């Protein structure tokens, strides 16, 4: 494959990189006030990249996937659909940011640019077919994320979040690298395809440890139990738009990347990874549900909710079947909509001086002061809990369907029973919003961008979402098919 076609295959990343670098230069020579303009341009760049992505995905010669740079990078339906979700999530996180930072002039042009760089990294993560590409993408995303977490330098919680994320993230990267080096040592290559071919039969202790370490590093990135400890603190400390971003785009990237590593590189070693993923999935579901019960801060609660949801995503992965991966991608799409919607609702929690509120008690009686926002909040909560007729149910449905079809009944039964525990805290939020007496703390009116986004996302997770199944299902099926 010649260089030109390789470059064409990575054109979305390329386009984003050039845009980000140009914008960086613009920022260097422009006044602080240009932040808003840079944000708009960044959104435009992401839109441009999405269009390139669609053009690529519809080119017939790339159906079923095409390798670039001698197998370092792969453009296929799986990567494209994940990337499309990532771009969408990044666009939404950018759209809600300026208003949040408006007060005190803390919003700076670096914010959209960091998001762009993180997005480039995520694009590489989901398309990587080599441990090296994977690691570079991962670090590009992580380094941007560390800075984003501590974006409000003057806020002690934000700085703490950034530092904590950095230290623990570096540890996880170390584990991942060590695992990669072990696998490389035994397989003789960093390419997923070659690793998959050379690791056959029963795994020796060396590559097995390598596999465990790689999975540990990846589990940290998707905040799965037992590597989830950073999540609540970082989600709570980071500025809310950043948290919304963390809970959506990087989650998609990390889960998709994990799927590719497992299926491509360790596809022949099902017995080795499956039990790990099953354990991690169930532990995430149970801990995410139980630990959320006592939370008083809505952002921490949503952090545990994201851990809980990762568990359900991993059930799809644990099956190791095409149907399971397809279900996982479907769940991801719905999850992104639900979690972004919930976080934008959190963004609207502001007191009369327009200061952000985060405590659950400030939501009391919201249904009487802001009925629209309350209804949207309830929709997202019931949807996250997976109660039909909301669309969140469908995500859980397809995942459990895949598990049952793969003959993993105990996994499905335990997972589904644990989701009842999770339902408790979601309906507790609804209870606070609808049953309690008004606290009258949230009095600021909503912003039209936020309201519009909430309305769109709420409509998507409402029962109307079911009408989208015939449109989305073929995409996720094609994505899964391209992985095998």
């Amino acid at each position, binding site marked *: 494959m010649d260089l030109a076609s390789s470059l064409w295959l990575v054109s979305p990343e390329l386009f984003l990189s050039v845009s980000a670098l140009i914008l960086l230069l613009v920022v260097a020579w422009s006044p602080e006030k240009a932040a808003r303009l840079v944000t708009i341009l960044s959104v435009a760049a992401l839109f441009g990249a999405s269009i390139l992505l669609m053009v690529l995905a519809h080119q017939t010669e790339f159906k079923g996937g095409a390798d670039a740079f001698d197998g370092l990078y792969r453009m296929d339906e799986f990567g494209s659909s994940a990337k499309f979700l990532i771009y969408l999530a990044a666009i939404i996180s950018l759209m809600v940011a300026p208003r949040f930072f408006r007060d005190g002039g803390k919003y700076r042009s670096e914010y959209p640019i960091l998001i762009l760089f993180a997005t480039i990294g995520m694009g590489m993560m989901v398309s990587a077919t080599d441990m090296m590409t994977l690691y570079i993408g991962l670090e590009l995303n992580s380094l941007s994320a560390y800075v984003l977490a501590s974006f409000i330098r003057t806020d002690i919680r934000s700085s703490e979040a950034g530092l904590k994320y950095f230290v623990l993230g570096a540890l996880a990267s170390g584990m991942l690298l060590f695992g990669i080096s072990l696998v490389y040592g035994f397989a003789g290559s960093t390419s997923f395809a070659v690793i998959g071919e050379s690791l056959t039969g029963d795994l020796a202790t060396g590559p097995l440890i390598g596999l465990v370490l790689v999975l540990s590093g990846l589990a940290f990135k998707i905040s799965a139990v037992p590597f989830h400890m950073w999540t609540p603190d970082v989600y709570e400390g980071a500025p809310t738009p950043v948290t919304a971003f963390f809970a959506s785009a990087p989650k998609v990237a990390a889960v998709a990347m994990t799927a590719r590593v497992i299926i491509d590189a360790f596809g022949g070693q099902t017995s080795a990874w499956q039990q790990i993923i099953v354990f991690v999935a169930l532990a995430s579901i149970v801990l995410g549900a139980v630990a959320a019960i006592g939370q008083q801060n809505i952002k921490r609660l949503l952090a545990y909710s994201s851990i809980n949801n990762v568990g359900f995503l991993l059930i799809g992965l644990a099956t190791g079947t095409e149907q399971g991966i397809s279900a996982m991608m479907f769940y991801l799409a719905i999850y992104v909509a639900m979690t972004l919607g919930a976080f934008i609702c959190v963004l609207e929690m502001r007191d009369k001086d327009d200061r952000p509120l985060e405590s659950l008690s400030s939501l009391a009686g919201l*249904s009487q002061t802001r009925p629209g926002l309350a209804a949207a909040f309830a929709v997202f909560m019931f949807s996250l809990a997976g*109660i039909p*007729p909301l669309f969140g149910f469908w995500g859980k449905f397809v995942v459990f369907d895949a598990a049952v079809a793969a003959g993993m009944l105990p996994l499905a039964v335990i997972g*589904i029973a644990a989701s*009842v525990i999770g339902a408790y805290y979601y309906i507790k939020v609804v209870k606070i919003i*609808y*049953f309690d007496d008004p606290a009258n703390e949230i009095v600021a009116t909503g912003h039209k961008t936020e309201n519009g986004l909430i309305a769109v996302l709420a409509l998507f997770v409402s029962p109307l979402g079911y009408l989208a199944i015939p449109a989305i299902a073929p995409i996720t099926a094609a994505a899964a098919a391209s992985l095998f």
Partner: protein
Amino acid sequence: MQNFPILSAMLLLPLLGAVACLLSDARGARWIALATTLAVFALSIGLWIAFQIGGPQWQFAEYYPVFGRFAWALGIDGIALMLIVLTAFLMPICIAASWDSIKERVPEFMACFLFMETLMIGVFTAQDIFLFYIMFEAGLIPMYLIIGIWGGANRIYAAYKFFLYTLLGSLLMLVAMLWMVNFAGGETSIPVLMATDFPPEAQTWLWLAFFASFAVKMPMWPVHTWLPDAHVQAPTAGSVILAGVLLKMGGYGFLRFSLPMFPEASEQFIWLVFGLSMVAVIYTSLVALVQQDMKKLIAYSSVAHMAIVTLGLFAFNRQGIEGAIIVMLSHGLVSGALFLCVGVIYDRLHTREIDRYGGLSINMPKYAILFMLFTMASIGLPGTSGFVGEFLSLVGLYKVNSWVTLVATTGIILGAGYMLYLYRRVAFGELVHEDVKAMPDLSAREMALLAPIAAAVLWMGVYPESFMAPIRGDVGALVARIDRAAPVGDAQLKMGEAKPVINDEAYGEAH
């Protein structure tokens, strides 16, 4: 008529009404809700008239594969028809019963009720197993809100309990449904699945998973404890809909899924069902006897009546199943009416404590007469709807096991005990409390609520054929389906042995 998508219309109309209520003010919402529910009731009457008795089993079928994995597939048989008519009949009454007693957040209340109506009719019309599940489960949301927002003092506990209990049961059912659909090769149509023979060893587990859901919904002892809490805390209309329709979903589930899909497993677990039901009949009747709270008393009596339903259903014969369905319909009317009767005096005195009343027959004669009618119907006096169903159920049960029937009949005697005791304490005796003395008799609105139910109760009691004709064919099909697993009755009638012929000559031979 068969071409008009009447079932979809009955589902969408309340939904549109709910949206309209949300956009309206309190006064407007009340009228919109009443108009919508009356329109749906009119449609259901149309449905009943157009339903061909003895025609095809599934009528008014609609099929739109709009969801990819499953379809918007609707259709009803006679059993579903009767339950839909019951739902549509009770809904306007619920709306009217909340006319004055609900003062806060009226638009939301009415919207919740209309949404609930869509889901309840949806459960009875769904022909796709996943559509059924969605409708079945979605009812949790409006009911959670109804109990939690407009309920009594301990409403939050009751709302949580209701929600989580029901959710756990249903989720196990979902796994079983997924397994079944996978087994049937992706087939999601309920009529097809009803004719699918699942391997007996798998049936055991599937039956248990479905049982977990329906037993909670029903509710059967010992998972009935959410019901008294939910009833006591819910507003009057909420109790009516809970007792009148939601409890019927459990029985409907047994009829639609457990029995026809897993006949062998149903037979295998027959003693589990009988055992739990026998305990329920006796135990909850005794508990009802000592209640001080009127709503709690009626709630426990509901558990006892539902136990008669399960006993009749698992008798595996025509009388038992038809009787169980009639008990379901009758209980829907009677318990709904009893909760309304409680609501009437609760609105006046704001207490449900039985001792605070007494002598109501003196100053509220109209009320006392209607209350007595419903009390008698609950006991199962001949001439009322209660008698028909209970008698048939017990006849069917007697064919299977006379001892179980003996226990169940004892429960009915106990039922007479607690209901008459309740009636005596509320309606008879002297008027001792000053505030009770000042209570006015039924208003025109309250009469309009109770009179139609009274008429229906008498109609069902005197001429049950109107209600049994539509279900006869479907019960026949069900009995034919489960006959292969039907248990052997304990009443083994033996022909006496013919006496040996002593004197041949006496008979002689025909020459």
